[in-house]
Protein backbone atom coordinates (compact mmCIF):
# COMPACT_ATOMS: atom_id res chain seq x y z
CA UNK A 1 0.00 0.00 0.00
CA UNK A 2 2.75 2.41 0.91
CA UNK A 3 4.06 2.14 -2.62
CA UNK A 4 0.99 3.87 -4.04
CA UNK A 5 1.42 6.82 -1.77
CA UNK A 6 5.10 6.95 -2.52
CA UNK A 7 4.48 6.96 -6.25
CA UNK A 8 1.99 9.78 -5.83
CA UNK A 9 4.44 11.68 -3.63
CA UNK A 10 7.21 11.11 -6.14
CA UNK A 11 5.01 12.39 -8.94
CA UNK A 12 4.04 15.49 -6.99
CA UNK A 13 7.69 16.13 -6.17
CA UNK A 14 8.70 15.74 -9.81
CA UNK A 15 5.88 18.00 -11.01
CA UNK A 16 6.97 20.60 -8.47
CA UNK A 17 10.63 20.34 -9.46
CA UNK A 18 9.80 20.58 -13.15
CA UNK A 19 7.60 23.58 -12.42
CA UNK A 20 10.43 25.36 -10.62
CA UNK A 21 12.67 24.76 -13.59
CA UNK A 22 10.33 25.73 -16.43
CA UNK A 23 7.82 28.24 -15.07
CA UNK A 24 8.72 31.91 -15.34
CA UNK A 25 6.48 33.64 -12.83
CA UNK A 26 8.14 33.87 -9.42
CA UNK A 27 4.84 33.22 -7.64
CA UNK A 28 4.23 30.06 -9.67
CA UNK A 29 7.81 28.94 -9.08
CA UNK A 30 7.25 29.44 -5.40
CA UNK A 31 3.97 27.49 -5.51
CA UNK A 32 5.88 24.65 -7.13
CA UNK A 33 8.34 24.66 -4.23
CA UNK A 34 5.37 24.41 -1.88
CA UNK A 35 4.12 21.47 -3.94
CA UNK A 36 7.48 19.78 -3.40
CA UNK A 37 7.21 20.33 0.36
CA UNK A 38 3.73 18.80 0.32
CA UNK A 39 5.07 15.83 -1.58
CA UNK A 40 7.57 15.43 1.26
CA UNK A 41 4.71 15.53 3.77
CA UNK A 42 2.86 12.80 1.95
CA UNK A 43 5.97 10.64 1.92
CA UNK A 44 6.54 11.26 5.64
CA UNK A 45 3.00 10.30 6.56
CA UNK A 46 3.05 7.22 4.33
CA UNK A 47 6.33 6.08 5.86
CA UNK A 48 5.02 6.78 9.35
CA UNK A 49 2.18 4.37 8.61
CA UNK A 50 4.60 1.82 7.21
CA UNK A 51 7.11 2.09 10.03
CA UNK A 52 4.40 2.07 12.64
CA UNK A 53 5.67 5.09 14.53
CA UNK A 54 4.49 8.66 14.80
CA UNK A 55 7.70 10.48 13.97
CA UNK A 56 6.75 11.00 10.33
CA UNK A 57 3.43 12.56 11.22
CA UNK A 58 5.07 14.89 13.70
CA UNK A 59 7.62 15.91 11.10
CA UNK A 60 4.76 16.73 8.72
CA UNK A 61 3.56 19.33 11.23
CA UNK A 62 7.02 20.85 11.48
CA UNK A 63 7.19 21.02 7.70
CA UNK A 64 3.87 22.84 7.56
CA UNK A 65 5.10 25.43 10.04
CA UNK A 66 8.34 25.93 8.14
CA UNK A 67 6.43 26.19 4.86
CA UNK A 68 4.18 28.84 6.36
CA UNK A 69 7.20 30.83 7.53
CA UNK A 70 8.70 30.48 4.09
CA UNK A 71 5.54 31.85 2.49
CA UNK A 72 5.74 34.96 4.65
CA UNK A 73 9.34 35.64 3.69
CA UNK A 74 8.94 34.62 0.07
CA UNK A 75 5.84 36.63 -0.71
CA UNK A 76 7.40 39.69 0.91
CA UNK A 77 10.42 39.39 -1.35
CA UNK A 78 8.41 38.69 -4.50
CA UNK A 79 5.93 41.51 -3.85
CA UNK A 80 8.79 43.97 -3.29
CA UNK A 81 10.45 43.01 -6.52
CA UNK A 82 7.10 43.18 -8.35
CA UNK A 83 6.47 46.69 -7.08
CA UNK A 84 9.88 47.76 -8.31
CA UNK A 85 9.84 46.13 -11.71
CA UNK A 86 6.11 45.75 -12.41
CA UNK A 87 6.88 42.16 -13.26
CA UNK A 88 7.26 38.98 -11.26
CA UNK A 89 8.99 37.12 -14.05
CA UNK A 90 12.21 35.47 -13.00
CA UNK A 91 13.61 36.18 -16.47
CA UNK A 92 13.32 39.92 -16.00
CA UNK A 93 15.54 39.88 -12.94
CA UNK A 94 18.74 39.64 -14.91
CA UNK A 95 21.08 42.36 -13.68
CA UNK A 96 23.35 39.98 -11.84
CA UNK A 97 25.12 37.66 -14.21
CA UNK A 98 28.42 36.24 -15.40
Amino acid at each position, binding site marked *: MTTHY*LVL*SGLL*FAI*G*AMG*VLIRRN*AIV*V*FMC*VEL*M*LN*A*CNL*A*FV*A*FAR*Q*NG*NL*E*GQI*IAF*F*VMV*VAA*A*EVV*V*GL*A*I*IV*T*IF*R*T*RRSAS*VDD*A*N*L*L*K*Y
Partner: protein
Amino acid sequence: MNDAVVAPTIEYGTLAPMLLVFGAAVVGVLVEAFAPRYMRKSIHVPLTLLSLAGAFALVIVQVVKGAVPTAPVAMGAVAVDGPSLFIWGVILVLSFVCVLMINDEGHFVASAAAVPGSADEEEAEAAGGSHTEVYPLVLFAVGGMLLFPASHDLLTMFVGLEVMSLPLYLLCGLARRRRLLSQEASMKYFLLGAFSSAFFLYGTAMIYGFAGTVSFTGINKALSTGSLLDPILLLGLSLLGVGLLFKIGAAPFQAWKPDVYQGAPTPITALMASGTLVAAVGALLRVFWVALGNLDWDWRPVMWAVAALTMVVGAILAITQTDIKRMLAYSSIAHAGFLLIGVMATFDKSAQNAKSLSAIMFYLLVYSITTVGAFAVVTMVRDPGGEAGHLSRWAGLGKRSPILAGIFAFFLLAFAGIPLTSGFFGKYAVFAAALASGSEAGDSLGGWMTGLVVLGVVASAIAAFFYVRVIVLMFFSDPAADGPSIAVPSMGTVAVIAISLLITVGVGLFPQPMLDLANQAASGLFIR
Protein backbone atom coordinates in the same frame (compact mmCIF):
# COMPACT_ATOMS: atom_id res chain seq x y z
CA MET B 1 -1.37 1.21 26.35
CA ASN B 2 -1.72 3.59 29.22
CA ASP B 3 1.73 5.11 29.21
CA ALA B 4 1.97 8.32 31.09
CA VAL B 5 3.39 11.17 29.10
CA VAL B 6 6.96 11.66 30.22
CA ALA B 7 8.19 15.23 30.24
CA PRO B 8 11.21 15.64 27.98
CA THR B 9 14.49 16.53 29.62
CA ILE B 10 16.38 19.47 28.26
CA GLU B 11 19.92 20.24 29.34
CA TYR B 12 19.57 23.99 29.58
CA GLY B 13 23.13 24.48 30.77
CA THR B 14 24.65 22.72 27.80
CA LEU B 15 22.40 24.45 25.31
CA ALA B 16 22.79 27.84 26.97
CA PRO B 17 24.84 29.53 24.19
CA MET B 18 22.19 28.76 21.59
CA LEU B 19 19.29 29.57 23.88
CA LEU B 20 20.88 32.91 24.77
CA VAL B 21 21.15 33.90 21.11
CA PHE B 22 17.56 32.86 20.36
CA GLY B 23 16.34 34.57 23.52
CA ALA B 24 18.08 37.79 22.57
CA ALA B 25 16.54 37.55 19.10
CA VAL B 26 13.06 37.29 20.61
CA VAL B 27 13.77 40.24 22.90
CA GLY B 28 14.95 42.10 19.81
CA VAL B 29 11.57 41.53 18.18
CA LEU B 30 9.88 42.89 21.31
CA VAL B 31 12.11 45.94 21.17
CA GLU B 32 10.98 46.48 17.58
CA ALA B 33 7.40 46.25 18.75
CA PHE B 34 7.48 48.45 21.82
CA ALA B 35 10.49 50.77 21.85
CA PRO B 36 10.12 54.16 20.18
CA ARG B 37 11.94 54.46 16.87
CA TYR B 38 14.69 56.79 18.01
CA MET B 39 15.69 54.47 20.85
CA ARG B 40 15.71 51.19 18.98
CA LYS B 41 19.22 51.20 17.63
CA SER B 42 20.72 52.19 20.96
CA ILE B 43 18.95 49.22 22.55
CA HIS B 44 19.66 46.74 19.75
CA VAL B 45 23.41 47.30 19.46
CA PRO B 46 24.33 46.44 23.06
CA LEU B 47 21.69 43.69 23.20
CA THR B 48 23.04 41.98 20.08
CA LEU B 49 26.71 42.38 20.87
CA LEU B 50 26.34 41.38 24.52
CA SER B 51 24.28 38.30 23.71
CA LEU B 52 26.83 37.13 21.15
CA ALA B 53 29.70 37.82 23.52
CA GLY B 54 27.79 36.14 26.34
CA ALA B 55 27.11 33.07 24.23
CA PHE B 56 30.81 32.93 23.36
CA ALA B 57 31.66 33.15 27.07
CA LEU B 58 29.25 30.30 27.79
CA VAL B 59 30.96 28.18 25.15
CA ILE B 60 34.33 28.94 26.75
CA VAL B 61 32.97 28.08 30.20
CA GLN B 62 31.84 24.68 28.93
CA VAL B 63 35.19 24.02 27.34
CA VAL B 64 37.14 25.08 30.41
CA LYS B 65 34.96 23.04 32.73
CA GLY B 66 35.60 20.11 30.44
CA ALA B 67 31.91 19.34 30.65
CA VAL B 68 31.57 18.25 27.04
CA PRO B 69 28.64 15.84 26.99
CA THR B 70 29.25 12.38 25.57
CA ALA B 71 25.65 11.80 24.50
CA PRO B 72 23.22 13.94 22.52
CA VAL B 73 21.23 16.34 24.66
CA ALA B 74 17.64 17.57 24.45
CA MET B 75 16.20 14.08 23.95
CA GLY B 76 18.74 13.25 21.27
CA ALA B 77 17.99 16.30 19.15
CA VAL B 78 21.21 18.26 19.59
CA ALA B 79 24.77 17.02 19.92
CA VAL B 80 27.02 19.42 21.81
CA ASP B 81 30.35 17.68 21.31
CA GLY B 82 33.88 18.98 20.82
CA PRO B 83 33.46 19.87 17.13
CA SER B 84 30.12 21.55 17.88
CA LEU B 85 31.64 23.72 20.58
CA PHE B 86 34.54 24.70 18.34
CA ILE B 87 32.20 25.57 15.48
CA TRP B 88 29.95 27.50 17.85
CA GLY B 89 32.91 29.49 19.08
CA VAL B 90 33.98 30.30 15.54
CA ILE B 91 30.47 31.29 14.44
CA LEU B 92 29.97 33.49 17.49
CA VAL B 93 33.25 35.33 16.94
CA LEU B 94 32.44 35.80 13.26
CA SER B 95 28.93 37.04 13.90
CA PHE B 96 30.14 39.41 16.63
CA VAL B 97 32.61 40.88 14.17
CA CYS B 98 29.97 41.09 11.44
CA VAL B 99 27.57 42.89 13.76
CA LEU B 100 30.26 45.51 14.37
CA MET B 101 30.19 46.08 10.62
CA ILE B 102 26.39 46.05 10.45
CA ASN B 103 26.30 48.89 12.99
CA ASP B 104 27.73 51.29 10.44
CA GLU B 105 25.31 53.76 8.96
CA GLY B 106 24.61 53.52 5.28
CA HIS B 107 24.57 49.81 4.61
CA PHE B 108 20.87 49.21 5.02
CA VAL B 109 17.89 50.74 3.30
CA ALA B 110 15.74 53.27 5.13
CA SER B 111 12.50 51.64 4.03
CA ALA B 112 12.61 48.29 2.28
CA ALA B 113 8.98 48.55 1.23
CA ALA B 114 9.47 51.80 -0.69
CA VAL B 115 9.94 51.43 -4.43
CA PRO B 116 13.51 52.44 -5.37
CA GLY B 117 13.62 55.94 -6.83
CA SER B 118 10.15 56.82 -5.61
CA ALA B 119 9.09 59.76 -3.48
CA ASP B 120 8.41 57.32 -0.64
CA GLU B 121 12.02 56.29 -0.63
CA GLU B 122 13.30 59.87 -0.65
CA GLU B 123 11.02 60.66 2.25
CA ALA B 124 12.25 57.66 4.22
CA GLU B 125 15.87 58.58 3.49
CA ALA B 126 15.26 62.15 4.54
CA ALA B 127 13.72 60.97 7.79
CA GLY B 128 17.00 59.20 8.41
CA GLY B 129 17.67 55.92 10.11
CA SER B 130 17.45 52.48 8.67
CA HIS B 131 15.78 49.20 9.39
CA THR B 132 16.64 48.19 12.92
CA GLU B 133 14.90 44.85 12.30
CA VAL B 134 18.28 43.85 10.93
CA TYR B 135 19.55 43.06 14.43
CA PRO B 136 16.94 40.49 15.48
CA LEU B 137 17.11 38.99 11.98
CA VAL B 138 20.86 38.57 12.30
CA LEU B 139 20.44 37.00 15.73
CA PHE B 140 17.89 34.51 14.40
CA ALA B 141 20.22 33.66 11.53
CA VAL B 142 23.12 33.16 13.95
CA GLY B 143 20.91 30.99 16.16
CA GLY B 144 20.11 28.86 13.13
CA MET B 145 23.81 28.67 12.31
CA LEU B 146 24.46 27.33 15.81
CA LEU B 147 21.67 24.77 15.61
CA PHE B 148 22.40 23.58 12.06
CA PRO B 149 25.81 21.94 12.61
CA ALA B 150 24.95 20.71 16.11
CA SER B 151 21.67 18.99 15.32
CA HIS B 152 21.57 15.28 15.90
CA ASP B 153 18.51 14.36 13.88
CA LEU B 154 17.43 15.34 10.40
CA LEU B 155 14.32 17.19 11.53
CA THR B 156 16.26 19.46 13.87
CA MET B 157 18.76 19.96 11.11
CA PHE B 158 16.01 20.98 8.68
CA VAL B 159 14.59 23.44 11.18
CA GLY B 160 18.07 24.81 11.86
CA LEU B 161 18.66 25.16 8.13
CA GLU B 162 15.48 27.16 7.67
CA VAL B 163 15.97 29.32 10.75
CA MET B 164 19.41 30.17 9.40
CA SER B 165 18.26 30.80 5.84
CA LEU B 166 14.95 32.66 6.13
CA PRO B 167 16.40 35.77 7.85
CA LEU B 168 19.30 35.78 5.40
CA TYR B 169 16.92 35.82 2.41
CA LEU B 170 15.41 39.01 3.80
CA LEU B 171 18.71 40.59 4.85
CA CYS B 172 20.02 40.16 1.30
CA GLY B 173 17.33 42.49 -0.01
CA LEU B 174 18.06 45.38 2.35
CA ALA B 175 21.07 47.07 0.74
CA ARG B 176 20.74 50.86 0.69
CA ARG B 177 22.56 51.35 -2.60
CA ARG B 178 21.83 49.47 -5.82
CA ARG B 179 18.39 48.44 -4.66
CA LEU B 180 17.58 46.53 -7.83
CA LEU B 181 20.62 44.29 -7.50
CA SER B 182 19.88 43.73 -3.86
CA GLN B 183 16.24 42.77 -4.46
CA GLU B 184 17.25 40.51 -7.29
CA ALA B 185 19.85 38.79 -5.11
CA SER B 186 17.23 38.34 -2.43
CA MET B 187 14.75 36.73 -4.83
CA LYS B 188 17.32 34.45 -6.42
CA TYR B 189 18.63 33.34 -3.05
CA PHE B 190 15.13 32.73 -1.78
CA LEU B 191 13.85 30.71 -4.75
CA LEU B 192 16.99 28.60 -5.07
CA GLY B 193 17.32 28.17 -1.30
CA ALA B 194 13.71 27.04 -0.96
CA PHE B 195 14.21 24.69 -3.91
CA SER B 196 17.28 23.14 -2.33
CA SER B 197 15.67 22.75 1.08
CA ALA B 198 12.79 20.89 -0.58
CA PHE B 199 15.41 18.45 -1.87
CA PHE B 200 16.92 18.17 1.59
CA LEU B 201 13.48 17.44 3.02
CA TYR B 202 12.63 14.79 0.45
CA GLY B 203 15.96 13.16 1.19
CA THR B 204 15.02 13.21 4.86
CA ALA B 205 11.71 11.54 4.03
CA MET B 206 13.46 8.78 2.09
CA ILE B 207 15.98 8.15 4.85
CA TYR B 208 13.12 8.07 7.33
CA GLY B 209 11.41 5.49 5.15
CA PHE B 210 14.53 3.35 5.17
CA ALA B 211 15.56 3.69 8.79
CA GLY B 212 12.24 4.31 10.50
CA THR B 213 13.79 7.22 12.36
CA VAL B 214 15.48 10.50 11.60
CA SER B 215 17.91 10.38 14.52
CA PHE B 216 21.50 10.07 13.37
CA THR B 217 22.16 7.30 15.88
CA GLY B 218 19.17 5.38 14.57
CA ILE B 219 20.13 5.88 10.92
CA ASN B 220 23.65 4.69 11.65
CA LYS B 221 22.26 1.62 13.39
CA ALA B 222 19.83 0.88 10.55
CA LEU B 223 22.67 1.16 8.05
CA SER B 224 24.81 -1.34 9.90
CA THR B 225 22.06 -3.95 9.74
CA GLY B 226 19.89 -3.18 6.71
CA SER B 227 20.56 -3.59 3.00
CA LEU B 228 22.83 -0.84 1.72
CA LEU B 229 21.47 -1.14 -1.81
CA ASP B 230 17.92 -0.12 -1.02
CA PRO B 231 16.92 2.40 -3.72
CA ILE B 232 15.05 4.50 -1.15
CA LEU B 233 18.25 4.84 0.86
CA LEU B 234 20.36 5.83 -2.14
CA LEU B 235 17.75 8.34 -3.27
CA GLY B 236 17.67 9.79 0.23
CA LEU B 237 21.46 9.98 0.36
CA SER B 238 21.71 11.87 -2.91
CA LEU B 239 18.88 14.30 -2.18
CA LEU B 240 20.28 15.10 1.28
CA GLY B 241 23.63 15.67 -0.38
CA VAL B 242 22.11 18.11 -2.86
CA GLY B 243 20.52 20.14 -0.06
CA LEU B 244 23.73 20.35 1.96
CA LEU B 245 26.11 20.94 -0.93
CA PHE B 246 23.88 23.78 -2.11
CA LYS B 247 24.37 25.53 1.22
CA ILE B 248 28.15 25.40 1.04
CA GLY B 249 27.99 26.46 -2.62
CA ALA B 250 29.74 23.45 -4.12
CA ALA B 251 29.60 23.01 -7.88
CA PRO B 252 27.25 22.21 -9.61
CA PHE B 253 25.09 23.99 -7.02
CA GLN B 254 27.21 27.14 -6.88
CA ALA B 255 25.24 29.41 -9.23
CA TRP B 256 23.52 31.39 -6.48
CA LYS B 257 26.69 32.37 -4.69
CA PRO B 258 28.16 35.10 -6.92
CA ASP B 259 24.78 36.74 -7.51
CA VAL B 260 23.82 36.75 -3.87
CA TYR B 261 27.22 37.85 -2.60
CA GLN B 262 27.31 40.72 -5.06
CA GLY B 263 23.79 41.96 -4.46
CA ALA B 264 23.57 41.64 -0.69
CA PRO B 265 24.69 44.43 1.65
CA THR B 266 28.40 43.82 2.24
CA PRO B 267 28.21 43.16 6.01
CA ILE B 268 25.58 40.51 5.29
CA THR B 269 27.75 39.07 2.53
CA ALA B 270 30.52 38.81 5.11
CA LEU B 271 28.18 37.01 7.50
CA MET B 272 27.06 34.59 4.79
CA ALA B 273 30.53 33.97 3.43
CA SER B 274 31.83 33.15 6.90
CA GLY B 275 29.11 32.00 9.29
CA THR B 276 26.89 30.14 6.83
CA LEU B 277 29.83 28.37 5.28
CA VAL B 278 31.16 27.26 8.67
CA ALA B 279 27.73 26.05 9.76
CA ALA B 280 27.02 24.24 6.51
CA VAL B 281 30.38 22.46 6.42
CA GLY B 282 29.84 21.40 10.03
CA ALA B 283 26.41 20.02 9.18
CA LEU B 284 27.70 18.26 6.06
CA LEU B 285 30.43 16.56 8.08
CA ARG B 286 28.01 15.48 10.75
CA VAL B 287 25.44 14.02 8.37
CA PHE B 288 27.94 12.19 6.22
CA TRP B 289 30.08 11.00 9.07
CA VAL B 290 27.70 10.30 11.92
CA ALA B 291 24.58 9.19 10.06
CA LEU B 292 25.80 7.98 6.69
CA GLY B 293 29.31 6.89 7.63
CA ASN B 294 28.55 3.27 6.76
CA LEU B 295 27.65 4.31 3.23
CA ASP B 296 30.97 5.93 2.48
CA TRP B 297 31.64 3.65 -0.47
CA ASP B 298 28.55 5.15 -2.09
CA TRP B 299 29.05 8.83 -1.42
CA ARG B 300 32.82 9.03 -1.57
CA PRO B 301 33.20 8.90 -5.38
CA VAL B 302 30.49 11.54 -5.84
CA MET B 303 32.06 13.74 -3.19
CA TRP B 304 35.39 13.34 -4.98
CA ALA B 305 33.90 14.60 -8.22
CA VAL B 306 32.07 17.45 -6.51
CA ALA B 307 35.23 18.56 -4.70
CA ALA B 308 37.26 18.48 -7.90
CA LEU B 309 34.61 20.32 -9.91
CA THR B 310 34.08 22.92 -7.18
CA MET B 311 37.76 23.82 -6.95
CA VAL B 312 38.20 24.04 -10.69
CA VAL B 313 35.00 25.99 -11.37
CA GLY B 314 35.65 28.40 -8.50
CA ALA B 315 39.26 29.06 -9.41
CA ILE B 316 38.76 29.41 -13.17
CA LEU B 317 35.60 31.50 -13.15
CA ALA B 318 37.12 33.85 -10.57
CA ILE B 319 39.71 34.88 -13.15
CA THR B 320 37.07 36.31 -15.46
CA GLN B 321 35.34 38.43 -12.83
CA THR B 322 35.33 42.20 -12.94
CA ASP B 323 33.50 42.86 -9.69
CA ILE B 324 35.38 42.56 -6.43
CA LYS B 325 32.51 40.98 -4.48
CA ARG B 326 31.80 38.52 -7.29
CA MET B 327 35.46 37.61 -7.38
CA LEU B 328 35.45 36.96 -3.66
CA ALA B 329 32.31 34.84 -4.14
CA TYR B 330 34.05 32.64 -6.69
CA SER B 331 37.04 32.49 -4.39
CA SER B 332 34.66 31.29 -1.69
CA ILE B 333 33.45 28.56 -4.06
CA ALA B 334 37.03 27.45 -4.66
CA HIS B 335 37.64 27.36 -0.90
CA ALA B 336 34.48 25.28 -0.44
CA GLY B 337 36.17 22.81 -2.79
CA PHE B 338 39.32 22.77 -0.63
CA LEU B 339 37.13 22.12 2.39
CA LEU B 340 35.48 19.20 0.59
CA ILE B 341 38.94 17.64 0.21
CA GLY B 342 39.02 17.66 3.99
CA VAL B 343 35.53 16.14 4.12
CA MET B 344 36.80 13.37 1.84
CA ALA B 345 39.59 12.69 4.31
CA THR B 346 37.27 11.64 7.12
CA PHE B 347 36.11 8.10 6.56
CA ASP B 348 35.45 4.78 8.14
CA LYS B 349 36.57 4.34 11.74
CA SER B 350 40.09 5.43 10.96
CA ALA B 351 42.38 6.96 13.56
CA GLN B 352 43.18 9.58 10.98
CA ASN B 353 39.68 11.01 11.27
CA ALA B 354 40.41 13.22 14.24
CA LYS B 355 43.33 14.81 12.41
CA SER B 356 41.26 15.42 9.28
CA LEU B 357 38.46 16.87 11.33
CA SER B 358 40.76 19.22 13.18
CA ALA B 359 42.32 20.28 9.85
CA ILE B 360 38.89 21.21 8.47
CA MET B 361 37.95 23.13 11.60
CA PHE B 362 41.24 25.00 11.57
CA TYR B 363 40.75 25.85 7.90
CA LEU B 364 37.20 27.05 8.55
CA LEU B 365 38.41 29.36 11.29
CA VAL B 366 41.27 30.96 9.40
CA TYR B 367 39.46 31.22 6.07
CA SER B 368 36.28 32.72 7.45
CA ILE B 369 37.94 35.36 9.63
CA THR B 370 40.07 36.48 6.68
CA THR B 371 36.92 36.67 4.55
CA VAL B 372 35.23 38.98 7.02
CA GLY B 373 38.30 41.22 6.99
CA ALA B 374 38.37 41.34 3.20
CA PHE B 375 34.70 42.31 2.98
CA ALA B 376 35.25 44.96 5.65
CA VAL B 377 37.88 46.54 3.39
CA VAL B 378 35.43 46.35 0.48
CA THR B 379 32.93 48.46 2.43
CA MET B 380 35.46 51.26 2.75
CA VAL B 381 36.31 51.83 -0.92
CA ARG B 382 33.44 53.96 -2.15
CA ASP B 383 32.12 55.66 -5.23
CA PRO B 384 29.47 58.36 -5.05
CA GLY B 385 26.82 55.69 -5.78
CA GLY B 386 27.97 53.26 -3.10
CA GLU B 387 30.80 50.80 -2.88
CA ALA B 388 33.23 50.73 -5.78
CA GLY B 389 32.54 47.23 -6.96
CA HIS B 390 34.22 47.22 -10.34
CA LEU B 391 37.81 46.02 -10.24
CA SER B 392 39.00 48.83 -12.54
CA ARG B 393 38.05 51.29 -9.80
CA TRP B 394 40.55 49.60 -7.50
CA ALA B 395 43.44 50.43 -9.80
CA GLY B 396 46.12 52.42 -8.06
CA LEU B 397 44.53 52.11 -4.66
CA GLY B 398 47.96 51.31 -3.27
CA LYS B 399 49.13 54.81 -4.16
CA ARG B 400 46.12 56.61 -2.78
CA SER B 401 45.78 54.61 0.38
CA PRO B 402 48.78 52.37 0.95
CA ILE B 403 47.70 51.07 4.36
CA LEU B 404 44.25 49.93 3.27
CA ALA B 405 45.55 48.43 0.05
CA GLY B 406 48.36 46.74 1.98
CA ILE B 407 45.91 45.17 4.40
CA PHE B 408 43.70 44.00 1.55
CA ALA B 409 46.71 42.58 -0.26
CA PHE B 410 47.62 40.69 2.89
CA PHE B 411 44.15 39.19 3.11
CA LEU B 412 44.35 38.15 -0.54
CA LEU B 413 47.71 36.50 0.09
CA ALA B 414 46.15 34.65 3.01
CA PHE B 415 43.39 33.41 0.68
CA ALA B 416 46.05 32.28 -1.73
CA GLY B 417 47.83 30.41 1.04
CA ILE B 418 51.18 32.15 0.97
CA PRO B 419 53.45 31.10 3.88
CA LEU B 420 53.45 33.31 6.99
CA THR B 421 49.72 33.83 6.62
CA SER B 422 47.09 31.75 8.34
CA GLY B 423 45.77 30.53 4.98
CA PHE B 424 48.98 28.63 4.35
CA PHE B 425 48.62 26.53 7.48
CA GLY B 426 44.94 25.99 6.78
CA LYS B 427 45.59 24.65 3.31
CA TYR B 428 48.61 22.69 4.48
CA ALA B 429 46.64 21.03 7.26
CA VAL B 430 43.79 19.99 4.97
CA PHE B 431 46.01 18.73 2.15
CA ALA B 432 48.30 16.86 4.54
CA ALA B 433 45.33 15.24 6.26
CA ALA B 434 43.92 14.17 2.90
CA LEU B 435 47.23 12.62 1.83
CA ALA B 436 47.67 10.86 5.17
CA SER B 437 44.17 9.43 5.08
CA GLY B 438 44.72 8.27 1.51
CA SER B 439 47.95 6.48 2.32
CA GLU B 440 46.38 4.95 5.40
CA ALA B 441 43.53 3.56 3.35
CA GLY B 442 46.06 2.10 0.97
CA ASP B 443 44.42 0.42 -2.05
CA SER B 444 42.96 2.53 -4.82
CA LEU B 445 41.54 5.17 -2.51
CA GLY B 446 45.05 6.38 -1.73
CA GLY B 447 45.70 7.15 -5.38
CA TRP B 448 42.41 8.98 -5.72
CA MET B 449 43.12 11.11 -2.66
CA THR B 450 46.56 11.99 -3.98
CA GLY B 451 44.98 12.96 -7.29
CA LEU B 452 42.51 15.20 -5.50
CA VAL B 453 45.26 16.90 -3.52
CA VAL B 454 47.27 17.49 -6.69
CA LEU B 455 44.18 19.02 -8.25
CA GLY B 456 43.76 21.12 -5.12
CA VAL B 457 47.29 22.44 -5.40
CA VAL B 458 46.76 23.27 -9.08
CA ALA B 459 43.51 25.05 -8.25
CA SER B 460 45.31 26.99 -5.51
CA ALA B 461 47.88 28.08 -8.05
CA ILE B 462 45.17 29.28 -10.43
CA ALA B 463 43.47 31.03 -7.54
CA ALA B 464 46.75 32.68 -6.53
CA PHE B 465 46.87 34.16 -10.03
CA PHE B 466 43.73 36.21 -9.64
CA TYR B 467 44.54 37.25 -6.10
CA VAL B 468 47.90 38.51 -7.20
CA ARG B 469 46.30 40.21 -10.20
CA VAL B 470 44.28 42.38 -7.83
CA ILE B 471 47.39 43.18 -5.83
CA VAL B 472 49.25 44.16 -9.01
CA LEU B 473 46.28 46.27 -10.04
CA MET B 474 46.28 48.08 -6.71
CA PHE B 475 49.99 48.76 -6.48
CA PHE B 476 51.35 48.94 -10.01
CA SER B 477 48.79 50.88 -12.00
CA ASP B 478 48.05 54.57 -11.87
CA PRO B 479 45.03 55.71 -9.94
CA ALA B 480 42.18 57.13 -11.98
CA ALA B 481 41.63 60.86 -11.67
CA ASP B 482 38.09 60.40 -10.40
CA GLY B 483 38.95 57.31 -8.39
CA PRO B 484 36.90 56.07 -5.48
CA SER B 485 37.15 57.75 -2.13
CA ILE B 486 38.21 55.90 0.96
CA ALA B 487 35.51 56.24 3.57
CA VAL B 488 36.67 57.32 6.99
CA PRO B 489 36.14 54.07 8.85
CA SER B 490 33.95 53.90 11.91
CA MET B 491 35.27 52.38 15.12
CA GLY B 492 33.41 49.20 14.26
CA THR B 493 35.00 48.75 10.86
CA VAL B 494 38.44 49.48 12.26
CA ALA B 495 37.85 46.88 14.94
CA VAL B 496 36.70 44.33 12.36
CA ILE B 497 39.74 44.84 10.17
CA ALA B 498 42.05 44.85 13.19
CA ILE B 499 40.63 41.62 14.59
CA SER B 500 40.79 39.81 11.25
CA LEU B 501 44.28 41.09 10.59
CA LEU B 502 45.42 40.10 14.06
CA ILE B 503 44.11 36.56 13.70
CA THR B 504 45.40 36.20 10.14
CA VAL B 505 48.88 37.37 11.11
CA GLY B 506 48.89 35.75 14.53
CA VAL B 507 47.84 32.33 13.34
CA GLY B 508 50.19 32.70 10.38
CA LEU B 509 53.16 33.24 12.68
CA PHE B 510 52.14 31.06 15.61
CA PRO B 511 49.68 28.47 14.33
CA GLN B 512 50.37 25.95 17.07
CA PRO B 513 48.01 27.16 19.83
CA MET B 514 45.10 27.30 17.41
CA LEU B 515 46.00 23.92 15.91
CA ASP B 516 46.16 22.47 19.43
CA LEU B 517 42.73 23.88 20.15
CA ALA B 518 41.31 22.37 16.96
CA ASN B 519 43.02 19.04 17.73
CA GLN B 520 41.59 19.03 21.19
CA ALA B 521 38.10 19.82 19.92
CA ALA B 522 38.33 17.13 17.26
CA SER B 523 39.88 14.47 19.48
CA GLY B 524 36.51 13.21 20.69
CA LEU B 525 35.15 13.25 17.14
CA PHE B 526 31.43 13.68 16.58
CA ILE B 527 29.35 11.75 19.07
CA ARG B 528 27.28 9.06 17.45
